[in-house]
């Protein structure tokens, strides 16, 4: 695919990249915490959740952007929620058809994608003001950023809590799993830990700028 050479070229790339790192929805904006904490007890659950959210995000951003001139301002939030709920229902049935096991372990959290603030947030803050193509890029970036974040948590929690990765044992027989990591408390600790790491990197970077 050749990139269209237009004045909008570099910003498009920025739109895509900002969701991945600089404005990462989970680690920087602290949005959509519930699924991040709840379904990251194994890598496969985390991956399924990330992809499902990304799909809903892309589709709803696209539709909101296409309809942005039609939707009256007063009822926009309600309209967005209805659009999102429709795609979540689609995703719910699709996951049920693809893998009943994943559907069971994610449980009500697939339906709860409706109330994931990232999706409503992007619809309101970005898709309602930008062209469909840019909205898709934005959704893709944010979706990948979210998937990256849930995987960060999923990998650590499955590795320490179960001694395995994607269900395959890593440490061998003698490893004693840290049960706390797959329990609710562990989710808070691991997310807190990642935030600590990012804070530390940020402080070190700004200190480096000052001294250098």
């Amino acid at each position: 695919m050749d990139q269209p050479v237009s004045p909008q070229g570099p910003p498009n790339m920025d739109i895509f990249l900002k969701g991945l790192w600089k404005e990462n929805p989970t680690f920087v904006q602290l949005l959509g915490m519930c699924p991040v904490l709840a379904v990251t007890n194994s890598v496969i659950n985390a991956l399924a959740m990330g992809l499902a959210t990304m799909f809903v995000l892309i589709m709803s951003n696209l539709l909101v952007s296409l309809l942005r001139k039609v939707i009256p301002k007063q009822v926009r939030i309600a309209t967005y929620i209805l659009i999102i709920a429709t795609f979540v229902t689609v995703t719910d049935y699709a996951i049920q058809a693809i893998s009943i096991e994943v559907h069971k372990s994610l449980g009500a959290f697939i339906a709860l994608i409706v109330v994931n603030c990232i999706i409503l947030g992007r619809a309101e803050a970005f898709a309602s003001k930008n062209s469909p193509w840019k909205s898709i890029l934005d959704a893709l970036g944010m979706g990948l950023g979210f998937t990256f974040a849930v995987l960060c948590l999923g990998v650590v929690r499955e590795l320490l809590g179960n001694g395995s990765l994607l269900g395959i044992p890593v440490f061998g027989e003698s490893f004693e799993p840290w049960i706390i990591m797959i329990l609710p408390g562990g989710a808070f600790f691991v997310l807190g830990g990642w935030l600590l790491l990012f804070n530390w990197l940020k402080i070190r970077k700004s200190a480096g700028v000052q001294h250098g």
Partner: protein
Amino acid sequence: MVNESVGFIFISASLINNFVFSTFLGICPFLGVSGKVETAVRMGAAVSFVMLISSLCAFGIHAALDYINAPYLQLISYIVVIASTVQLVEMIIKKFSPALFQALGIFLPLITTNCAILGLALFQTNRGYNFSQSLAFALGAGAGFTFALLLMSSIREHLELSTTPDVVKGAALTLIVAGILSMAFMGFAGLGGSH
């Protein structure tokens, strides 16, 4: 599990399976408005009220959708009911207590996207609770949510006055405290007996 007693459902929803600490529902307002005890308690009350109304409505909707055989409309109709209830609560609070309306700010309309409420409606449907069980479940969940907010905001008010290293300032510290609280709540599991 349709024959669980009403009392057990209440205790279970408020303590053993506390919405915030063990099922991870309603984390956004939990992190967002837990800075001050006063706001936290009022937020808890508003959420509990919305929970109660939406739980009753969800019970009716589920029966109606069952009757016309259209389960795929469940999610959409639940969210519409919740959004309208929140709108109602917003109007009531604005009329009777403008100060509280100011204090809650953006978090009031955001109750719509509080997953605790939609989660409550979905859980009660999945578990097949009857009318009084749904009522107990909603009351318990509301009480549990308010309790969690109250605990967290009291701790954070104290933390504000103590010196903490720069690295942990902000969300990281809140999350670690939440983790410790969550471990403490695991202790309630013993209350469940043989269930």
